[in-house]
């Protein structure tokens, strides 16, 4: 390190300036060592083609374009990206020795890495950046500290050495880059901005929680997931899109001119949950034009297979045909930065910009007859039972994450939900006494004399909050229901899939942390259907399910993830017991089911998991004399929900509308209102 102070490249600076940049350089070096350990070496005296730039990274709020801009203004020269993936044009300019520079950014890191073709260029950049004070969008000013490196860390150099563009695609997917010109892109963006600003749109634009949409040709109905074919809305603008529509046919992306257009505006951080476009509503050939910022789109064909990532560059066209349209889900994860290969260490990470998509589709007016029956709503009625599962009932599908086809859905729940709750009931009840504010608010808002049913009431935590109501609770666990009865509540032992109550008898229903215990989507939707059946017209239901995303946007980490020092476990603590006992990935108790065991107080790695419960023996007066039993661990099945998934389940029902959708302490929450009987 001492060599730095004598470095030739710092000779031009005054003593105090050199001290400042040394300090900055030391800090940057520490950060590099922290992330890359011995994989990166500082160059103490020599000028190389590699730089690290302290304070220029993503966690400081900078993006690649900021760095390029500073380099340009500081050196007076424009350096183009070297790697194909970073360019909007496929041709390599380096053969002409156009000065080139690649920037590498890392999620949550304060530094950036840079490589260039020649040391001469890097030297100029170094001199321009050293001690340079750069201003952020919010007015904050940070000094940048460039440091020469002898090499780039392995994870960056290995990916930069081969073509990044030949990632695997789902079958039938077509990706055409530079489908439109930059002028056309600007024209389309201007059109959308003007439309959004106009009065007409303010009332008719669909402001979904996680993005803004506009429809042309036919209106898409998010409640029914279909098109309103009887009432055409404003047509696809001919002058603006005519060429594009023509080109879509010419390129073989569609067989006829599309008659429906959906424009989606994604601010940085917004996304769309994974979904398959309903078969019966749109023909084959769904074409999405991307404008503005690049994003990564995830394609999935099922829980077992790895997700395929497709980079959508601005001005590119993505056409989903065949299998990619009918049998793969596509979605965009809501986050502020993107990287390829799903890893923040590859260096190919960038901060998202606003992206606008123009999705052109052909409205379908006949039932779908595709080959992908399991995903097909037109043909779903034809699927009776899965012949591979003995004694299976219609709709009795195996938990998507569970790889054992011999276990029908309800027996999985029996072993990993119902029996467990019966065993842990007293201890479980002890950990459940604080009513959550949002839920209490819902209950308090019901008119006096309302009938409120708590489905899956557990120990009755939410019964008795509002004495002006007629309150009834039901749960599958007799032991938990007994606890409710002892508290003086009116309760019934019943199953959520067969609720023994009159249709239309309830003004309000709450269902807190229940549906995530059901092991197939069919059963989860059926549960919601049952709840809705019980509502009177205009009645409302509140549903809470555990979220896969335990840390949501800017909200503080859900209580589940935080370590609590309190004696009373946080309301959402589903492990109940002492978390110091570490969990083996596959404990003996769970070896009969190949689902993974979740490690408490960490992020969920997949949706279908077993969550441990460490049972503390609650001594009752009866067994004070018994010797203490060793602490036992139980496993409960959970299907944790992704953003938007609960809403999607609800939207499969016809007689209900979504009133409110929100995230509360690690849960996805929804309020439904019954709109038809």
């Amino acid at each position: 390190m001492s060599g730095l102070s004598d470095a030739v490249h710092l000779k031009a600076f005054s003593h105090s300036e050199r001290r400042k940049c040394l300090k900055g350089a030391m800090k940057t070096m520490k950060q590099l060592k922290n992330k890359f350990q011995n994989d990166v070496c500082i160059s103490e005296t020599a000028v190389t083609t590699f730089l690290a730039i302290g304070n220029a990274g993503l966690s400081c709020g900078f993006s690649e374009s900021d760095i390029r801009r500073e380099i340009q203004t500081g050196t007076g020269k424009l350096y183009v990206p070297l790697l194909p993936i970073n360019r909007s044009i496929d041709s390599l300019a380096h053969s002409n020795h156009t000065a080139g520079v690649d920037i590498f950014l890392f999620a949550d890191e304060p530094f950036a890495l840079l490589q260039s073709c020649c040391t001469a260029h890097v030297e100029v950049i170094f001199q321009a950046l050293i001690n340079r004070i750069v201003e952020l969008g919010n007015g904050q000013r940070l000094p940048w500290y460039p440091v020469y490196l002898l090499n780039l860390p392995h994870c960056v150099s290995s990916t930069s050495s081969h073509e990044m563009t030949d990632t695997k695609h789902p079958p039938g997917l077509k990706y055409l880059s530079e489908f439109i010109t930059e002028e056309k892109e600007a024209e389309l963006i201007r059109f959308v901005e003007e439309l959004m600003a106009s009065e007409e749109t303010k009332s008719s634009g669909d402001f979904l929680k996680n993005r803004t949409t506009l429809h042309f040709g036919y209106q898409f109905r998010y409640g029914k997931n279909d098109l309103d074919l009887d009432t055409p809305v404003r047509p696809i603008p001919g002058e603006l899109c005519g060429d594009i529509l023509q080109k879509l046919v010419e390129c073989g992306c569609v067989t006829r001119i599309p008659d429906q257009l959906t424009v989606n505006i994604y601010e940085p951080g917004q996304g769309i949950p994974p979904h398959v476009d309903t078969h019966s509503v749109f023909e084959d050939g769904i074409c999405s034009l991307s404008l503005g910022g690049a994003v990564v789109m995830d394609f999935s064909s099922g829980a077992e297979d790895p997700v395929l990532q497709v980079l959508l560059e601005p001005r590119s066209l993505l056409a989903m045909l065949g299998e990619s349209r009918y049998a793969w889900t596509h979605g965009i994860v809501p986050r502020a930065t993107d990287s390829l290969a799903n890893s923040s260490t590859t260096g190919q990470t960038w901060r998202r910009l606003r992206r606008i998509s123009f999705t052109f589709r052909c409205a379908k007016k006949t039932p779908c007859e595709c080959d992908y029956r399991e995903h097909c709503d037109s043909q779903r009625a034809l699927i009776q039972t899965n012949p591979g599962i003995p004694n299976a009932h219609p709709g009795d599908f195996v938990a998507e994450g569970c790889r054992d086809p011999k276990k029908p859905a309800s027996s999985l729940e029996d072993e990993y939900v119902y029996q467990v709750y019966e065993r842990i009931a007293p201890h479980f009840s002890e950990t459940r006494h604080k009513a959550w504010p949002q839920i209490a608010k819902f209950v308090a808002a019901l008119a006096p004399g309302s009938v409120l049913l708590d489905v899956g009431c557990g120990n009755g935590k939410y019964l008795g909050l509002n004495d002006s109501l007629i309150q009834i609770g039901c749960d599958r666990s007799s032991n938990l229901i007994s606890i409710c009865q002892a508290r003086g509540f009116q309760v019934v032992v019943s199953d959520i899939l067969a609720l023994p109550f009159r249709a239309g008898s309830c003004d309000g229903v709450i269902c807190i942390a229940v549906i995530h215990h059901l092991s197939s989507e069919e059963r989860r939707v059926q549960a919601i259907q049952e709840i809705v059946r019980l509502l009177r017209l205009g009645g409302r239901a509140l549903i809470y399910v555990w979220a896969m995303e335990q840390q949501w946007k800017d909200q503080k980490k859900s209580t589940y993830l935080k370590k609590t020092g309190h004696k009373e476990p946080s309301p959402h603590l589903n492990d109940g017991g002492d978390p110091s006992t570490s969990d083996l990935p596959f404990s003996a108790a769970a070896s009969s089911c190949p689902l993974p065991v979740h490690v408490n107080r960490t992020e969920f790695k997949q949706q279908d998991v077993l969550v441990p419960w460490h049972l503390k023996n609650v001594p009752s007066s009866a067994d004070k004399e018994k010797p203490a039993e060793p602490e036992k661990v139980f496993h409960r099945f959970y299907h944790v929900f992704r953003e938007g998934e609960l809403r999607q389940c609800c939207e499969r029902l016809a007689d209900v509308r979504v009133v409110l959708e929100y995230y509360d302490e690690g849960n996805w929450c929804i309020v439904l209102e019954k709109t038809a009987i």
Partner: protein
Amino acid sequence: MKLLTHNMLTSKCIKGVQEGYPLRLKVENVEVKESDYNQEFIVRLLPKIRYDAIYSAAKDAGIAEDLPDSLPEDAATSEEFLRKLHHVLLEIEIMAGELVCPETGRIFPIQNGIPNMLLTAEESI
């Protein structure tokens, strides 16, 4: 189980049952738990209940002597009637007994004041 709760219960969840309402009641053990009469509360619950089922359940439980067999027209204002209703709906706890499906005869036990309405796999739709 109070008769107010009984009023909401059906056996329609059983495969093949058309209505499943009202459930017949067999009483083995009854407790009377007095509670404060709140006229407003009783008036408010009038539109939520099905009176015919209250009457038949009260009859099954042997406590229907004072009750009219159909909802009187002045129900909302007759304190005499409302007090009777209060007693029948809220002060009677069926601690042990049976609920019986009127169409299939299927018995659902009531134990410790709790009806168990769980179905077998064959009965589920």
